[in-house]
């Protein structure tokens, strides 16, 4: 059995955070997504929920293996408590899309950086994950742009919902990028700058999309 190094331990915590967000988003996409504004959006939300829950299950099982677990995979009874609070708090279509986009951008930055390090023991699974969530990002981005260009109070409500999520996502990204064990064992690059890139991505979305109604 491979030794569970400090880096692997840190990496499993990152994977668990991602899995927890996906686990909670899976439920939220069903609960709130059913009331999406169009039939295509609702159908896609349900399909994405299945995808998120499937990814969460795969990640929990992978964490079990990385920690040296053998034999049958443990039953997944719930998330491990690392999901972002704003994902729990999403309670309408606007806050759900804001949560989805925030999580998608944050996860994508970390996963792509892990993939770029080309660690043979993780690259295949990370590559599959990134590939399978491509359309999720298009969805949350597409809806974000749509809401920022909508009429009435929707743009300002969306902007407010998105801005509320930023501090928690930035805090998590800073924790990941500053984890010396992850860097030392080649899971992420030195000076990955996740938090900075995250802010730039969000600023780019907010900046180029028209004026915001009061």
């Amino acid at each position, binding site marked *: 059995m491979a030794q569970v190094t400090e880096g692997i331990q840190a990496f499993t915590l990152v994977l668990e955070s991602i899995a927890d967000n996906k686990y909670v988003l899976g439920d939220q996409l069903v609960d709130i997504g059913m009331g999406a*504004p*169009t039939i*295509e*959006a609702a*159908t*896609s939300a349900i*399909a*994405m929920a299945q995808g998120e829950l499937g990814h969460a299950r795969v990640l929990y099982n992978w964490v079990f293996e990385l920690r040296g677990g053998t034999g049958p995979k443990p039953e997944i009874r719930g998330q491990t408590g690392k999901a972002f609070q704003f994902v729990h708090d999403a309670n309408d*279509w*606007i806050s759900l899309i804001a949560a989805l986009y925030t999580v998608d951008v944050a996860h994508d930055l970390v996963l792509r950086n892990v993939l770029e390090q080309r660690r043979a023991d993780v690259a295949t699974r990370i590559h599959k994950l990134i590939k399978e969530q491509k*359309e*999720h990002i*298009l*969805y949350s*981005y*597409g*809806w974000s*742009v*749509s*809401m920022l260009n*909508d*009429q009435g109070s*929707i743009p300002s409500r969306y902007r407010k919902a998105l801005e509320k999520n930023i501090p928690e996502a930035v805090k998590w990204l800073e924790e990941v990028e500053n984890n010396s064990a992850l860097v030392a064992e080649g899971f992420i690059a030195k000076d990955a700058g996740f938090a900075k890139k995250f802010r730039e991505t969000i600023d780019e979305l907010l900046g180029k999309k028209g004026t915001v109604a009061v």
Partner: protein
Amino acid sequence: MNPDIEKDQTYEIFARINRGDNLMHIGTVKAPSDELAIAYAHFVYDEEDWTDMFAVRRDHLIQIKRTEPLFEKEGKSA
């Protein structure tokens, strides 16, 4: 929320199951942007593991020939 459905474009969705198969028209989606059209098509038409999938905005299709009506429209004939 009441999105302006009028702004949505209709996209025709085409796909093929196996490499080398003919491209089939499998349906349509309505979306306000190319990004959402791609996402909707991916999630809505997931009954097959398509090799290729394409979305074309309906107003980008070039009309070459069109069926003519069999009868004159009522009240229009001289």
